[in-house]
């Protein structure tokens, strides 16, 4: 298998950036001027010396060849990760073959770090196999899990009580109670080690101030939370797959222990959402042969980009293993066999009617599901009053866009790409509408990110 590194596109490199400021600073360094002694190896390493404000240039090394994702090292003092020098170097590498020649030997200052990484990578599979059964005490682990389940049960029972109190007094009263009530309840759920419940409770607090129609939304979310509580309290009586879904929705960590599926996984979309505490990264993959769409979820502390970052539009020859639970798209990326490579494969599309039907069917396995990943083929973005739709080019049916999607600049990229003609759009289809994430004009065409 060849490890010949494919040069990424600028967009793919920019997707690695932790924030906009880094993206901008990196772009500015993406010229040959400040760089010297730059090069790249066939193993996917890229290095260069960047002239900064001081006398001594910064030493920047990036390792893209590692199956676990890109790794960076730079002698600059920045705490951003990757720093602007690493981004600038990669952009230069992406755009200018002459400035960063391929097939070089790593210089002395870069070699030890790269060699160390290769050694660790080689050692890892053996270590992982040895560590799985050995060190942990299964009996202690079982006791810990039992204690946690008891806590969650206590939390779920308490939450049921609070929901009953709420319904007894009426939702109209909740509008006056405000956010504090929910924050406190959410904190109780964190104490109960049920982060999934805590997150849902926190979201309840925002609904009364979310505009017209809030009582309907609040009742829906209360009812689904009640359903989840009840699911947890009766999990022994549920079918195993549904019980696993309940466990993961409540917030118990699972292991991606599904059978690893090796395929050429096209990276369809990558986007981050952030709250005060946490940055959540979602990456959608589509397997060319297995036809499955998988979600990689990762988290980073606020202000730091979660790992990994994958280049949208390229395909990974890699293994992907599903997390447990019925109807869950979540998966974990396993071994990667080659650096990302361009591909013309695109997921097949469906009509808007089929897309909503697919969401309806998915609710059978997971009633808490907000949306399902769907590729819509031959749709046209159409303005509809203040809102937008994706209208089927063939029939008269359409999917409205979600409120969040309407506010994003990606909407206009989608409209511009279409120009009133049909395009294929990948996105998330749910009860709030459709959120477009990526679009392309024809089979095998360039992916345009919208998120």
């Amino acid at each position, binding site marked *: 298998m060849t490890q010949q590194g494919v040069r990424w596109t*600028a967009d793919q490199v920019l997707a690695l950036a932790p924030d906009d400021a880094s993206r901008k600073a990196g*772009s500015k360094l993406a010229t040959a001027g400040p760089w010297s002694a730059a090069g790249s190896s066939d193993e996917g390493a890229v290095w260069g010396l960047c002239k900064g404000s001081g006398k001594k240039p910064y030493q920047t090394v990036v390792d893209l060849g590692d199956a676990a994702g890109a790794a960076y090292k730079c002698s600059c003092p920045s705490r951003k990760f990757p720093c602007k020098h690493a981004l600038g170097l990669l952009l230069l590498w992406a*755009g200018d073959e002459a400035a960063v020649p391929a097939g070089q030997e790593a210089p002395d200052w870069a070699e030890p770090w790269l060699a160390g990484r290769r050694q660790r990578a080689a050692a890892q599979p053996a270590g992982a196999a040895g560590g799985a059964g050995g060190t942990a005490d299964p009996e202690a682990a079982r006791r810990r899990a039992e204690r946690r389940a008891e806590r969650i049960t206590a939390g779920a029972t308490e939450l049921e009580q609070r929901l009953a109190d709420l*319904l007894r007094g009426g939702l109209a009263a909740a509008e006056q109670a405000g956010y504090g009530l929910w924050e406190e309840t959410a904190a109780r759920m964190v104490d109960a080690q049920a982060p999934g419940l805590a997150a849902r409770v926190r979201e309840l607090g925002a609904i009364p101030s979310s505009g017209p129609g809030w009582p309907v939304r609040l*009742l829906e979310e209360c009812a689904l939370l009640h359903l989840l509580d009840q699911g947890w309290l009766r999990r022994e009586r549920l079918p195993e797959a549904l019980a696993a879904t309940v466990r993961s929705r409540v917030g118990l960590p699972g292991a991606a222990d599904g059978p690893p599926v090796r395929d050429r996984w096209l990276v369809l979309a990558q986007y981050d959402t952030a709250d005060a505490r946490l940055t959540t990264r979602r990456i959608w993959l589509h397997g060319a042969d297995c036809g499955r769409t998988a979600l990689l979820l990762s988290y980073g502390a606020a202000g730091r980009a979660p790992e990994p970052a994958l280049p949208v539009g390229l395909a990974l020859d890699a293994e992907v293993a599903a997390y447990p639970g019925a109807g869950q798209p979540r998966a974990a990326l396993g071994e990667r066999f080659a650096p990302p490579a361009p591909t013309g494969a695109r997921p097949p599309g469906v009509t808007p*009617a089929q897309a909503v039907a697919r969401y*309806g069917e998915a609710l059978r396995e997971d009633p808490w599901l907000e949306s399902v990943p769907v590729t819509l083929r031959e749709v*046209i973005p159409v303005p509809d009053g203040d809102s937008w739709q994706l209208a089927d080019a063939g029939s008269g049916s359409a999917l*409205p866009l979600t409120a969040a999607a309407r506010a994003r600049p990606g909407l206009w990229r989608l409209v511009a790409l279409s120009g009133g003609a049909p395009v294929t759009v990948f996105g998330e289809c749910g*009860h709030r509408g459709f959120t477009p994430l990526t679009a392309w004009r024809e089979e095998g065409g360039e992916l345009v990110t919208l998120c």
Partner: protein
Amino acid sequence: MIRTSAPVEAPAAGAWEELVTTALLGTDRRTPPGVPAGRQAPAALLDAAAVQTVRRRAGLRAAPAAERPHPAPEDPRPQLPPAAARRLTMLLADRPGTAGGGRRGTAPDLMELLPQWLAAANARGYAAPPQALPALLDAARGRTDLRPAALAFAGPRALWLARLNPDWRFALRAAPGSGAALPGPGEAERIRELWEEGLFAERVALLAALRERDPAAARELLAGTWATERAEDRLMFLDSLRAGLAPADEPFLEQALADRSRNVRATAAELLSALPGSALAARMADRAAACVAVDHTLGTPTIAVEAPHECDAAMERDGVVPKAPSGRGERSWWLGQLLEAAPLGTWPARLGGRTPEEIVALPVADGWQGELHAAWCRAAVRQRDARWARALLGAPAAPEAGGPGAVSLAERARLLGTLGAAERADWVAGFISAHGLSEAFQLLGVCAVPWAAPLGRAVVDALNIARDAGSYPWSFSGVMGLAERCLDPAEASRLDGLLAVPDEARDASPGAGGYWAEAFQRLVTTLRLRAAMAEELGVLGG
């Protein structure tokens, strides 16, 4: 929340409404249907609501499609090469106002390169990638100077897009008539119709387009409705005759000299005076010649000036403004206007067969030199007379060229505009070599981009001298910025020697060497970037 459709069965909808009402009021006040009141009521309500919620979500249907927009018109231009498309993305990502302010560092100012990139892409006739249009329109929205090139590059799809987003309305305003193409040469009827019924902007565009194609037809079109146009409109329309001005326009302009509006009269007179063969030019020549003569009674031949004593009605009709601005003598004010409008060809004959160079070299009596030469400068610019411009500019290395001489920097910049690009560059190069950069900014601004080799070398040498003189680079930030944008990228290799931080001289400003190295690094980086940009767009020869 968006409902893609109503739930399927009406009874279910009714049941859901009932549940929502009960939940709002509370089970203490209202009992959910089919549930006994009491302690179990809330849980029963939630059970029923959960079933309904999942049922409603699972039963969603696609909505009926709204009316589709008309598809965007086809853009027949070829696609950008992939590398150029990536470059465009990077240039557009660098938005002004978000940079960290303060010192500029060694990184190039990408936004400043966008105009060049657009010009090169337009020259090659490439189509904009559709997904880049929103960023392009946003950039053009913030910078009006970018708009013409950005909109030309953005093409028909951008206008289609602008109709859908109120933020981009400016694109529709900036491109009048772009919705419907201007009538072609054979469509006399449509031209007449658009001229008589179109909006003002459409009419201006029509007149300009027609003037370019057929100057006489444009003039006749205007003359047909001239009497009925409003004064402001007459002024704008008259101005569009400036392009393609020819002796055939004289009768019409002569007639406009009698216009009701003073501004229209003045513009007509100005246009006529730019036609050296016109009757107005001849009248002005007579008046001006009466004021200027060579006096041989002194030891050396000297120009004697006798300013006019009055501004009569005939002068006023020929566009001379009688009222002088405050602080200026009336007579010198009238003189300036006569000299400016008189054909320069008058003077060699009037002043003893001397060449323009000899005339400019003559001493002028009674302190009239400033007034006289300044008026000749304006005349040379108006009549685009390179010979006189050359004479008035003088030798670039002459000592008075650097100081506050008779001819101001702004006038010199305008005089340079009448010369060919190569001659202009040579003159400015000579000026910089002799006088340095402190006065050069305005002159550099009129030179063709990229700078010719001698000019580029003169600028780099002068920057090098400025550095060695120990000043800080930000004293030259204007010239530096111009050099980044205008220096030929091929010069980059000649700058390599300037990139190092020199040892600090005793009399130098502290730290200046480091800042200069940084400024030169930015210059070289920007030049390399421009070379790469040109190569990506297939522009040969840097």
